[in-house]
């Protein structure tokens, strides 16, 4: 089992409030991602779960047991660090053995030389060796066992760090931006490997990242944190399609969501630029932010009451997609539009384009940044 519950967790360093009354329930076997911009407190939260940091108030429950007073080493969690934190003076094998030796050997058996006289040590060593071999085969690092961390590449160190976490078969894995030191190609590859690993281990993963792409690709649920507050906790698709607030909408998704200033009139009709939305807002007579993702805008030849025009300032060709950064005519906005290469490859910087939106995709936010729903009518 590996359920983790955080109840009313707050943390402050001196007068700085880092975490604000957080409540999270992590299910057994779940891949939960804590995602947010740097400095939002996500790493602190992970360290509180690990027991490396003490919360100012609130409770941490692991498998429904309160572990507020339990030391990090006794919580039976394993952690993978951003810098991997392998013991630089030990071989890979010894690095993998260390958590097992500390768990299995008693104090006498850990003594150098005379510890070997303990009768039970031989069996324990045998089982440790088996576990290390099994783990290193799973992670394909068997041939690295006699090397020191300094002789490994970044990707290999990453695997060893994972291995050191895995050997102990903990109730949950905690990962603190484990992929951020890898190069881009390897990072994408490791994402799929981590997901596979999670599927085969079926253990709870709590994963911290500032990269919303990692959160979207790997997690079963993601928790978006900004400035010490938990803004939304849901499946990646739901967070992407249905962000609860403007900050979440802006944080999740790359390129960023386009935000237009608009208004809702007394009947709830939402208008921005020269366009009116078909659906009606549940809040009327107010200024609104209208969010439309780049893939929900299209470059078109039509020009009517549903389109608006602008000048292409910059074109970002990714091969499969081209993103156009467009200055809207009234000068208020710079927006990003996705175009398919086969239709838009001839459009160059400085051209005038008409833009139309895909209907039923706009998101509304009020002045406070909270989500405003459309009425069903």
């Amino acid at each position, binding site marked *: 089992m590996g359920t983790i519950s955080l109840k009313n967790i707050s943390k402050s360093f001196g007068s700085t409030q880092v975490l604000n009354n957080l409540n999270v329930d992590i299910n057994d076997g779940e891949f939960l991602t804590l995602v947010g911009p740097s400095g939002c407190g996500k790493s602190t939260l992970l360290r509180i779960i690990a027991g490396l940091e003490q919360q100012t108030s609130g409770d941490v429950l692991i498998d429904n047991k309160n572990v507020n007073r339990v030391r990090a080493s006794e919580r039976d969690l394993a*952690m993978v660090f951003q810098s991997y934190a*392998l*013991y*630089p003076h030990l071989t890979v094998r010894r690095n993998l053995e260390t958590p097992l030796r500390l768990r299995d050997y008693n104090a006498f058996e850990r003594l150098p030389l005379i510890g070997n006289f303990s009768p039970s040590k031989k069996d324990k060593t045998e089982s440790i060796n088996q576990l290390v071999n099994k783990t290193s085969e799973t992670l394909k690092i068997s041939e690295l066992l006699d090397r020191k961390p300094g002789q490994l590449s970044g990707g290999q*160190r990453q695997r060893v760090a994972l291995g050191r976490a895995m050997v102990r078969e903990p109730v949950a894995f905690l990962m603190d931006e484990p992929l951020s*030191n890898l190069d881009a190609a390897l990072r994408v590859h490791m994402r799929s490997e981590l997901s596979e690993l999670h599927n085969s281990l079926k253990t709870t993963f709590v994963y911290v990242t500032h990269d919303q792409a990692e959160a979207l690709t790997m997690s079963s649920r993601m928790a978006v944190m900004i400035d010490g507050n938990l803004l939304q906790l849901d499946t990646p698709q739901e967070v992407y399609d249905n962000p609860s607030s403007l900050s979440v909408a802006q944080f999740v998704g790359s390129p960023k969501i386009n935000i237009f200033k608009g208004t809702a009139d007394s009947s709830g009709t939402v208008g921005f630029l020269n366009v009116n939305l078909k659906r009606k807002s549940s809040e009327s007579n107010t200024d609104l932010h209208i969010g439309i993702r780049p893939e929900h805008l299209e470059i078109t030849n039509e020009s009517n009451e549903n389109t608006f025009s602008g000048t292409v300032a910059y074109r970002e060709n990714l091969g499969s997609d081209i993103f156009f950064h467009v200055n809207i005519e009234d000068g208020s906005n710079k927006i990003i539009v996705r175009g398919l290469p086969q239709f838009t490859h001839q459009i160059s910087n400085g051209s005038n384009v008409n833009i139309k939106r895909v209907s039923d995709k706009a998101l509304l936010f009020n002045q406070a940044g909270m989500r405003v729903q459309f009425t069903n009518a």
Partner: protein
Amino acid sequence: MEAKQYIGEGWKHAILIIGAIVVMLPFYMMVSMSLKSQQEIQSISGGLIGAQETQTFPVCVKTGYSEETCTMKPYQYNYWFAFEKAPIPRYLMNGVIVTLSIFIIQVLVALPCAYALAKLRFYGREFVFSMVLFCLLIPVHGIALPLYVMLAQAGLVDTYSALILPWTISVFGIFLMRQFFMTVPDELIDAARMDGMGEYAIVWKVMLPTAIPALLAFAIFSVVAHWNDYFWPRMVITGNRDLFTPPLGIREFRGGIDSDEFGPMMASIVTVTVPLIVAFIIAQKRFIEGITLTGMK
């Protein structure tokens, strides 16, 4: 490379070579005098090793050895007589016992201290650290007398304890190791905690191995300082020759009825200096190898 650059490099090397000669000269004199006869030393003749003529040495005969025993080449005589006159192996052993005990206890104290000051958060940490810095400013000679009185009261004068105890807490060691520990990433310590290590285990199994280069630097400071120390042993070892450290032993060759005989004296000094030089050369190699933290980033 351009000719100009050669000249520039040449100047640098010329200056460095002059500096090296100035530093090496006393050592050259020491080795040379330990090989030559008294006459050659006093007349400043004979180059590095002298003529090495077999001769009978008068001081030796005066001390009570037969003329036959006292007839040999100068280099043989100098070293043989140095060991005959004073129990040099005993002095060397005392030196080893004292310096090693001091160093080991210093490490036992300094490492946990430095770890706490560098990596643990506790109330008053900054104050404790500022006291460490303050203690660095106190000269040893300033507190020698009170220390002596305390040791005398405790009845420890003329014991190994008197030589070792006052030096077991090295604020310099604490400071040096603390500065080094500051550079060890916190994540490594957190990883060790997650693996189940206690704080003492972290000090000895994680911090110590990563700190080997700093520890070696400290070892050189500590061992050289206490191996060569003359002042403190002279104060607390008042009579018992069995407790003499090497510098006190060398003093045996000065003055007295035999007049100053430089050959055996220099031979004893060479014997006392060589272990240090050898230790330094061995340590220097490890220094450069070191266990780096490159595996961390």
